[in-house]
């Protein structure tokens, strides 16, 4: 029903014309779900915007055709496109709350679309809108009708955006990264809903995502894009088992999945042996009955309700949970940026929670407990070059100056795989992976014993994530650090951690060795989390890989 041929899109920028999509060809059958997968800059979202003809002012379709049920969308007039959008082809986006008009009731927004495409009159618009809400399984639809987007959760907002998309009975749904920013359980609920409703109505859909596992689970076929071109297409199982194109292989390898170790994420040539690092017996960090209560506008908020756990020297502990579970609050308290309400935090036997956060800056233990932040863009000072960023902790907490300082900085950069020529660049001149390395170099500058990693790879492309995770493992082995790895991504935690703590609603619901918790969870919430995580199809290892593996052993 959709046939794209030699489709090319370009953007006019200050530096000339940029080719975002360089001639792609695709076919989509009736009732089929196609997943378009790629990393940032691959042109996958641009393709969908161009198809709907909602590109920004500087973008245009340079060449090619996109024939939808007999009509070439690339050539259609704007007036005809307005009839197509929302009625025959619909789209849902990422960041659902921002996708809705903040000062207009959601019910009215639905009505606008229904009335525009002649599906409702002024008289029955409200009833039809409520019907549309019920179609996406929203309970209490009549009450939700009068709500504003800021009053609703992210998952609910995405359902409403979906309701708007389905309201006029389109034949094709395009979903552009619909689950980015949502919790895993919400993600599963939304994707299941999308799949159920599109199947029930016999709709085709295009799922655009960077998450290969998600795409594999919810699509019939996949198309892999890189640099504006499609490198490979095929059913998910085939692509995973036997990828033809080297880029596909790289992506498939880099996707964290059951049965794959850290090194398996990397391309074959980079798979140097992983140094073993056995945790010691001594307890490095002991948390006892930690509590944190905030005073919110409508009463006290119990962010952390009394948790206890121990981290041994050399261990890599994963702290898992969805948003609002208290894991970020816990890590802030552990790194002493936040004061606790009650409870102890023992570091090498000494209660560091007793020292207020403001004074901990001058404590000699400050350099021993460090943190790698989630969003490297936010965690690097835009005015400081990479060199200055890495130098800061050394200048503040050690006596190194002059040549010795520069040597140390270069040492750290090399350790983290950052080319020395990039040291004088500013954050906006660095790529995502490079910025992550700068953040890591800064954190390990003073040889900390305990490193807290707050979702350090969440914002990175999957292939860069593979590299950074391996870097973190290597550093830990080399420098003998202890890790607390905070994440919502269970597959990543499985790779890097030997011990796991699961949090929900401010409490620890389960903790134990990673293999045990992941494979045989005892708490129902852990089971729900594990069930919600998308499971990529198994990769069949090539014979050459098997040979290399047995040679290494």
């Amino acid at each position: 029903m959709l046939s794209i041929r030699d489709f090319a899109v370009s953007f006019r920028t200050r530096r000339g014309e940029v080719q975002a999509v360089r001639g792609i060809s695709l076919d989509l059958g009736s009732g089929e779900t196609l997943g378009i997968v790629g990393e940032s800059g691959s042109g996958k979202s641009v393709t969908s915007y161009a198809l709907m003809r909602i590109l920004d002012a500087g973008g245009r379709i340079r060449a090619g055709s996109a024939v939808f049920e007999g009509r070439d969308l690339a050539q259609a007039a704007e007036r005809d496109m307005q009839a197509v959008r929302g009625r025959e082809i619909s789209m849902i986006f990422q960041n659902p709350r921002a996708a809705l008009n903040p000062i207009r009731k959601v019910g009215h927004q639905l009505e606008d679309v229904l009335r525009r495409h002649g599906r409702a009159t002024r008289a029955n618009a409200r009833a039809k809108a409520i019907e549309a809400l019920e179609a996406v399984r929203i309970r209490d639809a009549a009450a939700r009708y009068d709500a504003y987007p800021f009053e609703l959760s992210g998952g609910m907002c995405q359902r409403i955006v979906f309701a708007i998309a389905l309201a006029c009975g389109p034949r094709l749904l395009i979903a552009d990264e619909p689950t980015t920013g949502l919790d895993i359980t919400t993600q599963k609920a939304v994707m299941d809903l999308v799949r159920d409703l599109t199947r029930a109505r016999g709709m085709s859909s295009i799922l655009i995502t960077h998450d290969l596992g998600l795409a594999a689970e919810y699509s019939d076929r996949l198309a892999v894009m890189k640099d504006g071109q499609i490198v490979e297409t095929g059913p998910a199982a085939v692509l995973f088992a036997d990828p033809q194109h080297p880029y596909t292989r790289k992506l498939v390898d880099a996707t964290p999945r059951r049965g794959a170790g850290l090194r398996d994420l990397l391309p074959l040539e980079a798979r140097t042996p992983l140094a073993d690092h056995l945790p010691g017996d001594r307890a490095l960090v002991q948390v006892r009955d930690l509590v944190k209560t905030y005073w919110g506008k409508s009463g006290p908020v119990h962010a952390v309700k009394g948790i206890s756990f121990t981290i041994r020297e050399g261990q890599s502990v994963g702290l898992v949970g969805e948003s609002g579970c208290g894991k970020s609050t816990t890590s802030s308290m552990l790194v002493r940026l936040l004061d606790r309400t009650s409870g102890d935090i023992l570091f090498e036997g000494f209660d560091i929670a007793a020292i207020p956060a403001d004074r901990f800056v001058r404590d000699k233990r400050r350099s021993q407990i460090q943190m790698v932040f989630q969003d490297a863009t936010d965690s690097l000072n835009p005015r400081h070059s990479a060199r200055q960023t890495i130098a800061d902790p050394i200048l503040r907490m050690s006596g190194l100056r002059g040549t010795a300082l520069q040597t140390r900085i270069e040492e750290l950069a090399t350790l983290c795989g950052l080319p020395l020529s990039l040291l004088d660049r500013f954050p906006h001149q660095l790529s995502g992976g490079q910025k992550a390395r700068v953040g890591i170099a800064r954190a390990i500058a003073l040889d900390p014993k305990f490193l807290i990693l707050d979702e350090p790879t969440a914002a990175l492309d999957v292939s860069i994530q593979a590299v950074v995770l391996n870097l973190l493992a290597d550093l830990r082995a080399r420098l003998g650090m202890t890790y607390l790895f905070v994440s919502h991504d269970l597959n990543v935690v499985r790779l890097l951690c030997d011990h796991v703590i699961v949090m929900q609603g401010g409490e620890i619901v389960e903790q134990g060795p990673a293999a045990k918790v992941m494979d045989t969870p005892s708490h129902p919430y852990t089971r729900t989390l594990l069930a919600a995580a998308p499971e990529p199809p198994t990769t069949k290892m090539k014979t050459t890989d098997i040979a290399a593996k047995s040679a290494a052993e």
Partner: protein
Amino acid sequence: MAGRTRAIGMRLAQTVPVIIGVIVISFILTRALPGDPAVYFAGAMADAESIQQVREALGLDKPLVMQFFLYVSDLAQGDLGRSISTGQPVLTDLAARLPASLELTLSALVLSCLIAIPLGVLAAVRQGSWVDHLCRVLVTAGVSLPTFFTGILLVYVFYYLLGWAPSPLGRLDFIYFEPPRVTGFYLIDSLIAGDPETFAATLRQLTLPTITLALFTLAPIARMTRAAMLQALSSDYIRTARAAGLSRGKILFSYGLRNALLPVVTTLGMVFSFVLGANVLVEKVFAWPGIGSYAVEALVASDYAAVQGFVLAMALLFVTLNLIIDLSYALIDPRIGFDTK
């Protein structure tokens, strides 16, 4: 809803310390004025003894704190003192002259909104076109123009050179009589009295000063409308609306402009602050009998009660206006008072 009522209540409560601060500052300002008021009140021929009597009568010999409390209690009764120059209670003077200033200010604001808002919208929608450039030039020029200079230039060109505008001597040419006073606004009063000639005459006199003031307020309103519109149009929800096939008009007005007007409304408060100040200058150029020229004359004559009354009146007027603007913003924007997730 409770959150909203709370937010409104808090906003009202915030006004109280501000009003107190305003009263304190205007008291301090005028006590620091040069010259001994007692000397002026006593007259040129007075000797030291009668000056002292006058001083006691006015309460100027008491400690400053006592004077302040006396001042506040007078205020509560609506007594702003008596003007030296006119001999009238200051409140009466101000009340008599306020409509003239308001008529001028409001006309200018309405005129500039009528031009600036559509201009800002057009500039945002047609980015890079000649409308956009015109808007940017107008904005930069408008912000750079000194109001008194524009007024003078306009008088020179349109009165002296072209003879189109009447002479800048106040609200009404002396051959016309004031319409019977209902609101104090000549435009409205002349219509109520059924006197189209006076109406036309008022309009003629009003034109140049209104244009002068409007040029001044045009710039910030157009700039804010353009910026807010650009911001709104590049938002995610506009993309959703486009993808859902909504018509251009619907997207532009119901989704874009409505959201963009919110910051514009807040800007109006700031614009009003500038305009009340520019009012003083324009009234001097056009000999407009409003409270601005009243204040200037009072300053020259060291008429401290009048100056104090003027500063206080302007500040209270402005506080009330900001309150109205903030409250109407709270009513338009459903997000106010809510803890966003």
